[in-house]
């Protein structure tokens, strides 16, 4: 399968901060991929290098098998950086007409406006739009040239729920054209709902990579709670259990294999007030990007 975008063992240091520390990832054509990580994880740096805006200190960034700059010149890429691009004294129509015409085979203007839900705003000045509307203009600039790959850096940061929903609706409209989409986010629900694949980044490295279901499974996502009496350390040795916490007579087990853990508890006759909670991506995320980050990566390698 043709690779749309890749980073190979890339490093980038700003002062004392290692924003990329041996970062390797590869995105095949046609996928919608989320780069998920907390603030300062290195998502924007990874995107900046992929787009040719930042040269890596070492390693290689490439788009469609060549230098990022070349793919950008050929009009194969559209991008929405984290901020900027909204200039004074032009209308939405004027701005998008200009941007689309820098590409060889752009989408027709009407189509761009419709996809970005801007048709009614076409003749408004871009510097007089609301935050959500301006964000859709920035999205429209990314898709105007009908590129094969679009890269969006935290497209929904600072948007309210309604504006976020509208932007994702626009993005799905574009994804239906079979395009490759890479977006970064620190909203876990977005990665879960919008992406085929989630790459978790932390401290400039890939902490985990898989479908959101896989990510959850990787990191002891299910919580099992039981009431215990007396010595309870043996619970930590049950099959599937990777974490144990005791609060009074209540034990909280984190398990990668909830079925096996529950069966073992039953055999031991310890099923008292049992409560099994399948964790959401939020839990997975916290586990991956805090102290558990290295083990997350290790688990991934074992599974691979």
């Amino acid at each position: 399968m043709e690779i749309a975008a890749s980073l190979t063992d890339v490093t980038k240091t700003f002062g004392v901060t290692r924003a990329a520390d041996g970062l390797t990832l590869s995105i095949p054509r046609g996928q919608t991929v989320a780069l998920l990580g907390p603030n300062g994880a290195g998502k924007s740096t990874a995107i900046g290098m992929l787009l040719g805006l930042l040269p890596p200190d070492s390693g290689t960034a490439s788009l469609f098998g060549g230098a990022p700059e070349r793919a950008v010149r050929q009009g194969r890429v559209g991008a929405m950086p984290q901020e900027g691009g909204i200039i004074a004294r032009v209308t939405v129509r004027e701005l998008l007409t200009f941007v689309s015409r820098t590409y060889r085979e752009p989408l027709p203007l009407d189509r761009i406006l419709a996809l970005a839900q801007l048709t009614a705003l076409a003749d408004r000045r871009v510097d007089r739009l609301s935050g959500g509307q301006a964000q859709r203009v920035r999205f429209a600039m990314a898709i105007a040239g009908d590129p094969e790959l679009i890269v969006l850096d935290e497209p929904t940061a600072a948007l309210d729920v309604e504006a976020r929903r509208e932007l994702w609706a626009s993005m799905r409209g574009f994804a239906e054209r079979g395009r490759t989409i890479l977006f970064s986010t620190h909203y876990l629900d977005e990665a879960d709902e919008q992406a085929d694949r989630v790459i978790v980044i932390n401290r400039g490295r890939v902490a985990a990579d898989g479908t959101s279901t896989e990510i959850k499974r990787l990191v002891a996502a299910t919580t099992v709670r039981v009431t215990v009496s007396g010595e309870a350390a043996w619970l930590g040795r049950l099959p599937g259990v990777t974490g144990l916490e005791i609060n009074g007579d209540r034990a909280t087990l984190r398990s990668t294999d909830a079925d096996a853990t529950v069966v073992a508890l039953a055999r031991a006759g310890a099923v008292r007030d049992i409560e099994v909670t399948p964790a959401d991506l939020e839990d997975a995320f916290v586990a991956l990007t805090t102290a558990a980050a290295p083990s997350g990566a290790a688990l991934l390698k074992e599974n691979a």
Partner: protein
Amino acid sequence: MSGYIRLELIRSLRDGGYIVFGVIMPVVMYLLFTNLGIAPGDKHDAALFTMVSMAAYGALGSAFNNGSGIAEDRAAGWLRQLRLTPLTPAQVVAGKVVTGVLGVVPSIAAVLLTGVLVNHVTLTAAQWAQIVALLWVGTVPFSLLGLGNGYRLSGQTAAMANLATMLGLSIVGGLWLPTANFPGWLRAIAEWTPSNSYAALSWHAAAGEPPGLRQTAVLVGWLIVFGLYAMYGYRRAGKTA
């Protein structure tokens, strides 16, 4: 690239700073200077001399304003957005220079038209052609200086630096008041400024004299200096854009 130039020209025409400093102010000052009898000498000569001065002043205003626009664009993330389109960096820079060169046309035209229509300035067709060409081409060094400031400095600072430079060069260069009234030391400085050399080429043309060699040399010298400065600013900005 023509699309980029068109977009930038639309933005200039909607820019109050450009309209006020580049077009309206020079015309108003021209009318004041010539009709309040502040300008020296014979009425027609004064109208002619001051017409060139004020056209030069307006052209400086719009050339520098274009440079300040670059700093504004940088702050707005617009230069980065442009880097993510198929336009090459060279096309973007060239587009901005062309915008600056075209942007001075209304400034020059407004004052020259006022000269003809209100102050009844008369010149031969060849003189008009010479003056228009010299006033127009001569703005390139100032466009480059303005762009250099725009690339090198941040938004507000660049706008202030460009305004101060524009006013400084206009005053010391003798565009507001003729250098003939200056004390000797200031006149000596004026003769080395790009603004005085720039206007002097057209003053000569208006008086039916050939362009001065010295003034041409000074202006070309500044063209080289400001060209290098703009390149330096652009390279530096490229690292942070």
